[in-house]
Every structure is written in C-alpha cells, then in structure tokens.
C-alpha cells in the first residue's frame, strides 16, 4: 500500500456536494417543523420601553412571540465568554436583550410560525417602542472621557487593557534608532460572509427529555458545553449538537450565538421542531465581525535598516458585547505576533479592548495575526522608504536566522521551525524579482504607476498546551480527540472532534489513518460534527485541525496497531517483542517472516470471534486518543504582488501574485494549495474591497452584499504558488497550519504594492479607486 500522506487524493466529500446533496442545516426538513424569525433593533442604542405582540399573535399561523424577559424567566442564562484576560469586564449578553439594545441587529423578540413567510410577516406586526440614547461606534473615541457608555457599569467602555513586551527595551531600542517612523493605521472592520448563512434547527423529544440541535458550527462539542452549563441548561447527556455540512466558517461559526439558545428554548416550549435560517442582510448585523483596530505605531531603524524597536498602541473595537473569543484576538494572537519574522529586541504593545454600539467583533480568518502582519509589514515599508532602501533588503537584514530555531520572540511565542531567508529567496526566484524590478523601472519611465509589494508573515497555529492556554485566558483546553472503530471485517470508522466546513477532513484524516494502519483510504469513513456520535472534541479554528486533530488520529492508530500486534504474537506463538506491525500493508508478523503474516482483516476478525486472543485481552477493537499539543507551530509566508494603478480612475489591477508558503509537511497538496489560494484572495479582499462602515447613527452602511464589496472571480490573475518545507517538530506529522496563512500575508503584500506604485507612505484600507484617486490629486 503506497503512502497517501503527501499525495493529492481526490476529495471523498466532493460527490455529494457536486450533486447538490450537501446536508447543510437549512436543508433539514422535520415533520411538524415550525419557523422562527427574530425581531431586531433598528437603533444602535436605545431603551426598550414597550413590546406589543398583540397584532403578531393574531396573525393566522403564528404560534408564539417571545421576548428577552420570557427567556430569562424561562431559565436561559447569559452567553458566556471563552477567553478572559486579567481584569476583563465582561458585560452580560442575553440571547434576546430584555431592556436595552446596544447595536443595530440586537435581538428583542422571536416569533415562531407555521411557515417562514408567516414568521417574517409577523415581525412587522410586533410593535417595539424605543427611547434612543447617545451612541459610539469608533474604538478609540469610545475610550475618550465623556463618550456614551455602552454598558453603564463599564467605565470608559474599556473592557480590558493588555500589555505585552518590555517597555524599557522598547524605549532603549527606539532611542538608539537612526530614524523612528510613526504611523497611525486603521485595520478595517470585516464581515466574514461565509457563503452559507448561519442556521439552527432544534427538536425537543419530550418522552426522553432529549434535545437535538443542528447548527452551523465549527465546533459542536464546545457549543454543547456552553449550552448545557450556561445558556440553555439542559444536562449535557440529554443534549446532542450536530454541525452537519457547514458552508464555510472563516472563524465566524466558532462562537456561541443567541439563536443557538432561542431556537431550542422555543422548541421545548412549543414541543415542536423549530428552524431558523439567517438572511444575508441579517448576517451582516449579527455574525461577529473581524479586525477593526485603530493603531498608533513607532518603529525604529538603524541607518543600515536594522529594526531597533517597535512600540504599538491599539484600540480594538469589540462591539456591543464580548463575543466568545473576543479578547483572545487583539491580545495574544495580535500583540503576540508583532515580532513577525524578525529579530527585534525592543517590542512593547498596549491594547485597549473597547465596547461600542456595533456588532460584536471576534475572529475572522487569521484573527489577530493579519492585524499583526499588516502593522509590521506596513511599518517596514514606510521605514525602508524613508531610508531610501529596498524593502526587500530591509526584510532580509532583519530575519531570524535559520540557525536560531526554535526561536523565542521577545513578546510571547516560541517559533518552532523555519528558514526565512530560504523562503524569501524562493519567492524572489519564482517571481524573477530582478526582471520584475527592471520591467517596473521601464514602466515607470513611461509614466505608468506599477508597484511591487512584499510581505512576509508568520501564523501561530495549533496552539497549546492546554495548561498554558488556560493559564493565559482560555476557558477550554486546546486538545483534540480521535477514535478508531475497527469492525470485524476490517473496515474502519474514524471519529474526530475536529470539524470540516470546507477543509476536507473526510479525505485528509482518512489519509492519515490509512497510512498509520496500512489500509486503503476507501476502507475508512470519517465522522465529525456530531456530539451524539463523536466521543469528545474541541473543533476547528486557529488552523489546528491537522496539527492537533491529525496527531490524535496518529495516536489512536498506534493503539490499534499495538493491540493487533499482541493478537498476532499470540496467534503466531511468538514473543510480543518479536512481532512487528507493517504499516505498508496492515499486517503483523514475526520479524523476518513476512510470509507468515496476520492480515488486518484476520486480526480485526479475531477481536470479534474473541476465541484466539491473548489471556486477559478484551474483545472488540476501538481505540481513542487525545492529543494535547506540547507547543505551537509557526507556518510562514513570503509573498510578492505586482499591481498597476490607473491614474485616471484610481483602479488597481493585480498583474502578478507570487506566493511561497511553508506550512511544514503536507498531507494533501491539492487541499493545502486550495486553502492557501482561498486565503490569499480573502486577504486581497480586505486590502482592496471590504469594509464594514458605520454612520454616525450606528447604521451599518455596507450592510448587504450590494454595498459590501467582496472578491469576485475577476479580481485576480492566476496566483503563482511555491513551497518550502521546514517540518514542525512538535507533532509527529510535521505539519503546520495552512487555512489562514494566505489571508495573513496577502493583505500587506497588496497594500505595499499599491503604496509602491503611488510612491507614498500610507493609505488606509480599503484601497478603493476613490481613495487612490483622491491621493493622486
């Protein structure tokens, strides 16, 4: 059996998607299904004076209308957070707000009806009287004295302050600099916009007090914990959470959302199944947003380009409430990464997490790490420009040398492996950087605005161990589980706590198990996303599935092999230590005698007949393993973009995009490349197009796909891809995260290219034609 890890096995999950047979939550039909819709606040900040549902309740087909007070009286708890930094002030967040609305879209009532059309009709018949209040939407203005308070008990709207680094070393570094570049940068607010809108279906089964919830989640097991312990309060063994096929997540489907409380609560109340499907316009004002930083940074450089220090102050907009992992993102995942791929002695960062009258902000693809890469890579380009140096050379000068790995940054993380000079040389070769520069020079002479932009970026992925992450704020461990059930006929089901919503786990996890057991991929079925079938789990976020979930599979397979080896030893009448399990073909035999091997099928069948097992061995063959990572992995990238700006219109044309990524060893090159490609375009979207913008009344101006520009098929040329490999030492597969890497690197590459074309220091994103045209005047 040839190894499958490292090969582009075609995806197991594709046929059902290609035939339109995906099992997305919204597709679910249950007998007696009812439909729920949520009445949402049109105001950014207001007191609820009165809710009158009389007319709605009179509409034929309406089964009930419920408010925040009903949910509280009915036993629902507030939505908890999964991350707490020291002295964090966490405001109460109810599934439906009982007294005051704090952002446009805040839910005030839910209506359940016989059809989705009737439920929508009824929304318009619910009368809500509001008394509007002053509001604030800007992260920095929220912390200024006298700003309207989003939650009266939280002074200055500051949920937390957090510092990282060495203040004195930073001051010393900046003092010894030849020049210090100071820049204010706004990292735009993003709407995640997975193409599948969120949805939730719940079915209460009264005879056995059992609740089943289908939800568009990246991590059904933690959602069950939160539902059981905090919000819905149904005992965990009576609660089954299923995240079936999920149409993309990008972070936005990690969090515990209000509708996951409302829908099952109503189902139990009316004793019928209930379905809620988010509309896209509703998603814009309810899905947790991403980024939204205001930053003032200083970076010091010696005359030769050596970076001497970096000082960062950031106001991170957290929205009206803290979403599940809100405070993780601008703290450890952002400030923890501001060392980038560089050796910088003096780094100090200070972040204010502020509350505003906007949609809550949490992880969106990259989560903190794109904000860090954008900051560092923009500052280096501005510094290089001031020093009149090639930004490529300034980067080269400051890279952490390959000989210094594992490398402890002065801020937080210990980078496991990498060769940053090599990855940069590779991308320069692939792009023919020298030729690119020459052609750019000629174009400029002809008056054309051609720019070349670089970025290098690290991602911190698969973080752990649990002991460390819980000590810095996590409410959950960062392990993953896997179970392998070997049937008497030698077929295998692999149960993983990781979740696939586009990543292709049903293929890649089967590849891992196939190689570890020496059987065919087609003999393994991967089950995920169902707390009723999968023993335990954490889920998929932070590019952790391969590194953590994949390693759990490796560990479970080792246990299966060990049991099989003991069975073979018993049957071959050999000492156990003399018998080997051959992973190339799934057999076990006495060393040197492969001709007298026990096959995988024979050993599996023995656990069923249970008549030829070693003394004391239990029948059956099912092994579970948990993997708690010992460290993290640091995938890294070097990207080069070439753009041309049309001076008449300000439009940006991306002419070339060359990307080299080091994500360690690769399980399936086709899938990894696909994730990198998608990530790159997502990040380009932020650079050029995407921006969630609020007006002074707290109304989201870019609140639909008509107004919020997303990357479309004609945005990019064919991306040229390359790869370097430094295996991750912290997991047996040697893999690093891949799902977010492209997004982290591409935003600064494009912005740097546009600034190079315009020959200016900085423009904030998105780099729209209008903004560029204005800059050119």
């Amino acid at each position, binding site marked *: 059996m040839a190894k499958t890890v490292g090969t582009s096995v075609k995806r197991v999950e594709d046929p059902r998607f290609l035939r339109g*047979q995906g099992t997305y939550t919204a597709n679910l039909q249950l007998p007696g299904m009812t439909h729920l819709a949520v009445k949402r606040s049109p105001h950014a900040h207001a007191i609820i004076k009165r809710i009158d549902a009389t007319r709605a309740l009179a509409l034929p087909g309406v089964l009930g209308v419920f408010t925040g007070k009903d949910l509280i009286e009915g036993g629902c708890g507030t939505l908890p957070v999964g991350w707490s930094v020291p002295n964090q002030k966490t405001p109460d967040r109810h599934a439906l707000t009982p007294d005051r609305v704090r952002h446009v879209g805040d839910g005030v009532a839910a209506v359940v009806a016989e059809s989705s059309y009737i439920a929508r009709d009824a929304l318009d018949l619910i009368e809500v009287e509001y008394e509007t209040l002053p509001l604030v939407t800007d992260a920095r203005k929220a912390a200024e004295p006298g700003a309207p308070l989003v939650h009266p008990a939280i002074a200055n709207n500051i949920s937390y302050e957090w510092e990282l680094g060495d203040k004195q070393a930073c001051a010393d570094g900046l003092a010894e600099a030849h020049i210090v570049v100071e820049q204010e940068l706004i990292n735009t607010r993003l709407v995640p916009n997975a193409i599948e809108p969120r949805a939730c279906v719940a079915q209460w089964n009264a005879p056995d007090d059992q609740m089943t919830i289908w939800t568009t989640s990246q991590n059904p097991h933690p959602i069950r914990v939160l539902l059981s312990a905090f919000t819905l309060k149904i005992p965990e063994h009576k609660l089954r959470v299923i995240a079936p096929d999920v149409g993309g997540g990008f972070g936005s489907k990690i969090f515990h959302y209000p509708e996951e409380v409302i829908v099952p609560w109503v189902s139990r109340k009316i004793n019928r199944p209930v379905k809620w499907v988010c509309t896209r316009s509703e998603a814009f004002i309810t899905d947790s947003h991403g980024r939204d930083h205001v930053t003032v940074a200083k970076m010091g450089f010696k005359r030769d380009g050596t970076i001497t220090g970096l000082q960062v102050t950031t106001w991170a907009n957290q929205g009206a409430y803290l979403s599940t992992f809100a405070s993780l993102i601008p703290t450890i995942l952002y400030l923890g990464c501001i060392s980038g791929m560089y050796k910088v002695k003096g780094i100090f960062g200070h972040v204010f997490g502020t509350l505003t009258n906007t949609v809550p902000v949490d992880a969106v693809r990259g989560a903190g790490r794109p904000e860090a890469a954008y900051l560092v890579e923009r500052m280096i380009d501005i510094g290089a420009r001031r020093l009149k140096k090639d930004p490529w050379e300034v980067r080269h000068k400051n890279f952490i040398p390959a000989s210094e790995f594992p490398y402890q940054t002065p801020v937080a993380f210990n980078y496991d492996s990498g060769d940053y000079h090599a990855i940069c040389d590779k991308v320069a070769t692939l792009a023919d950087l020298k030729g690119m520069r020459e052609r750019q020079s000629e174009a400029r002479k002809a008056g054309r605005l051609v720019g070349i932009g670089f970025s290098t970026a690290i991602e911190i992925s698969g973080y752990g161990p649990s002991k460390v992450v819980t000590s810095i704020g996590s409410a959950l461990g960062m392990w993953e589980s896997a179970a392998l059930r070997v049937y008497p006929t030698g077929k295998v089901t692999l149960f993983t706590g990781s979740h696939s919503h586009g990543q292709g786990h049903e293929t890649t996890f089967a590849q891992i198990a196939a190689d570890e057991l020496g059987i065919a991929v087609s003999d393994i079925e991967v089950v995920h996303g169902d707390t009723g079938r999968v023993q335990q789990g954490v889920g998929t976020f932070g590019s952790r599935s391969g590194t953590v979930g994949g390693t759990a599979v490796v560990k479970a397979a080792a246990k299966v092999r060990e049991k099989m080896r003991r069975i073979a030893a018993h049957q071959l009448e050999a000492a156990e230590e003399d018998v080997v399990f051959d992973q190339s073909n799934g057999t076990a035999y006495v060393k040197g005698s492969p001709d007298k091997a026990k096959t995988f099928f024979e050993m599996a069948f023995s656990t069923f007949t249970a008549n030829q097992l070693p003394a004391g061995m239990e029948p059956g063959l099912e092994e579970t393993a948990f993997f708690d990572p010992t460290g993290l992995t640091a995938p890294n990238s070097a990207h080069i973009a070439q753009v041309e700006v049309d001076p008449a219109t300000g439009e940006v044309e991306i002419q070339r995009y060359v990307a080299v990524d080091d994500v360690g060893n690769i399980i399936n090159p086709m899938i990894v490349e696909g994730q990198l490609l*998608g990530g790159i375009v997502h990040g380009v979207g932020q650079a050029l197009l995407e921006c969630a913008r609020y007006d002074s009344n707290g109304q989201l101006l870019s609140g639909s796909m008509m107004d919020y520009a997303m990357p479309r*098929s*004609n945005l*990019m040329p064919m*991306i040229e891809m390359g790869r370097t490999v430094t295996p991750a030492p912290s997991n047996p597969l040697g893999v690093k995260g891949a799902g977010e890497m492209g997004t982290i690197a591409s935003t600064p590459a494009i912005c740097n290219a546009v600034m190079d074309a315009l020959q200016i220091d900085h423009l904030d994103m998105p780099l729209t034609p209008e903004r560029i045209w204005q800059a050119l005047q």
Partner: protein
Amino acid sequence: MTHTISLTVNGKAHCSVVEPRLLLVHYLRDILGLTGTNIGCDTSQCGSCTVHMDGEAVKACTVLAVQADGASIKTIEGMAANGSLHPLQEAFREEHGLQCGYCTPGMIMAADALLRRNHKPSEAQIRQGLEGNMCRCTGYQNIVKAVQNAALKMA
C-alpha cells in the same frame, strides 16, 4: 390569494398551488424538496441559487414561482445524467474547484450556461462569466481551471 402553476423541473412535470409572492428558490427547496439549490444572500449578489430556466441561468431568489409557470427548470440535481457526473461536475472534482460546497451548485449551473454560450472561453471570459457567483473558499482559481477543464471535456 393563490395561483396554480405547471412547470417541468429536471424533466418531471409538477403542478402546484402557490402564493404569488413565493420565490422560485423556496418553491424548489421547500415544496419540491430540491435542496441542492442553496441560498446565500437576499440581494441577488451571490449566485448560490443559480438554476436554468428554459436554458438560461437565472438566480432563483429573483424569480417568483409564478413567473416559472410553463417553464422548464433545471437544477443541480438534474445535472448528473443516469447517475454519472456531468463533465463540469467531474472537472470541479479533478481541479479541486470546491471546498465547503455551498456555492458549488450555483457555480456549476452558471458555468454550464457559460459553456453553452461559449464553447471555448478564455480565462478572462470565464472570470467575467462567473462574476455573478461568489465563493469565499477557493479564491476562484481552481473554479476557473475546472471550467477550462470541462470545456475541453465537452468539446
């Protein structure tokens, strides 16, 4: 007030009584149970709900069921003839033109209409032709390759 409509969906005749405001996409999904056609937005931007109406690609969220009275509709469920995948479906698998799969049915229906208009589209024509269909996972590159691949298969 209701209307009676008669139409063909994937070659099968249907006669239904519907509200005049019912969208075609809800008719297909909720009444006929053809949930392969997905809904990704509410402003006709994302193209997830693309189906064929009398051979033309339409966004089924922007067509009323009553407008489809007398029409012939084809959805993703009608693409695999006699159980075997359509060349476009095969090409999407070969080129890894899908990840989460949610935009895929609409993308394939749009691509099929494109290839019937233009048997040998250039890369630029494919990119322009699929502009009305959004994908967040793939960055479109492998979708473009899949359509190129399918064009060769179907030539």
